[in-house]
């Protein structure tokens, strides 16, 4: 108990520095989830509605990519963005931009795969009706996304959880530079290796509290809307 109290006291002492870390964590992870959602929902919907050769293979690969190791994603994005890499000229390495890219890559398969599952279940229910009305695949996919929006909240939350919790990718492409690319998870890793366990623990609690608050808010919105629309 003392360690926890001590940790929280130390966290509060960090003050401005802490808020910068928290704000950057939120900025990076929420941006990555926004990008991954924008790409992942249409991808999941297309896989749910379209029938094509190799579809099952694509789904297997997509599901497997949910387990992408963050350090591997970090390494690949590092190679892409490094000075000699194909996107080196953008000068993004060791910036929050690079961290957003890495987390987007990490989260995209999670959101797309979970969306595909939810939308395929909805499609089973809707297909005949929508085809009977004459909806084309594109219209049908948009209709499914809108109608399954409450189930899709869960997919997006899973992606957010992954982004907020990972340390490997942001560490490699961000470099954990104080005041520039330091986020909650990399700060925790650093403090732990320095032996400042109370501070590491305190930061951990702040991170958990943040994730909990985001999930609770999303769940509340979801339930209210579900009660209203059935």
């Amino acid at each position, binding site marked *: 108990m003392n360690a926890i109290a001590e940790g929280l006291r130390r966290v509060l002492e960090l003050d401005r520095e802490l808020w910068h870390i928290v704000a950057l964590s939120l900025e990076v992870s929420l941006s990555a989830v926004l990008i991954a959602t924008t790409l992942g929902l249409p991808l999941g919907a297309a896989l749910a509605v379209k029938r094509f050769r190799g579809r099952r293979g694509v789904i297997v690969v997509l599901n497997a990519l949910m387990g992408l190791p963050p350090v591997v994603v970090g390494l690949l994005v590092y190679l892409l963005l490094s000075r000699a890499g194909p996107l080196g000229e953008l000068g993004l390495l060791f910036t929050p931009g690079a961290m957003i890219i890495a987390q987007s890559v990490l989260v995209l398969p999670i959101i797309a795969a979970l969306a595909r599952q939810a939308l395929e279940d909805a499609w089973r*229910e*809707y297909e*005949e*009706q929508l*085809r*009977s*009305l*004459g*909806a084309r695949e594109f*219209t049908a996919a948009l*209709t499914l996304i*809108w*109608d399954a*929006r*409450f189930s899709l909240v869960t997919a997006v939350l899973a992606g957010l959880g992954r982004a907020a919790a990972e340390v490997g990718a942001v560490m490699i492409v961000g470099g954990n530079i104080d005041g520039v690319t330091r986020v909650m998870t990399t700060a925790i890793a650093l403090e732990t290796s320095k032996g400042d366990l109370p501070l590491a623990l305190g930061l951990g609690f702040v991170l958990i509290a943040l994730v909990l608050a985001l999930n609770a808010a999303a769940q509340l919105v979801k339930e209210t809307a579900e009660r*209203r*629309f*059935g």
Partner: protein
Amino acid sequence: MAASILPLVLEDVAYAPRGQPLVRGISLTIEAGPSTIILGANGAGKSVLMRLMHGLLAPTSGRVRWHEVDAASLRRRQAMVFQRPVMLRRSALANVVYALAIAGVPAAEREAQARAALEEVGLRHVAQRPARVLSGGEQQRLALARAWALHPEVLFLDEPTANLDPGAVREIETVIKAFDAAGTKIVMATHNLGQARRLGDEVIYLQAGRVMERSPIDDFFAHPATAEAAAFMKGELPWA
């Protein structure tokens, strides 16, 4: 309006997914006018036959031919109401507007037409309610309004009252009669003899995926042409 999409002609149609025939040897001509009841026990192939006609299933062999070649026009001029209505997660009114939008009705006209369709089935008072929280009977009437808003020439109904209580059944039947009176060709699958009598002009009797007989409604009930149909009406079990 352009020439009718009817008659609908089925030529030796079979549907056999994975080699298992669900219907076979079906040759029928469905003409404008009399409301047609597809009668048969559960599993006789009524739903499959309706889906083949409506174009939701492609026949394994044989042909389904309408008096209209343009696929989009054909889709717009027929509608189907399913046993279990599928309502979108939006208001009752928005469900009808959605169907009108897909059918290509100009945006400015959709709401007025949708409201007229809701009025037609007695659902004006729930226009703004979320469709999925309506009762089963109301949802089915909403499905009828959604189909009716498109003013289809042909309306397929697949056991539209199978899951409903007697009061709701009466309401649905009243609406179907009104559509029939307005000149829409009704093709309805049912296993309910009373309903067949109340709504039908002619009967196509189906058993084990085959058409056993087709007769005017009164003839069918007075003296069925086949022993199978007679047995079905007496409630005898086909395997006994």
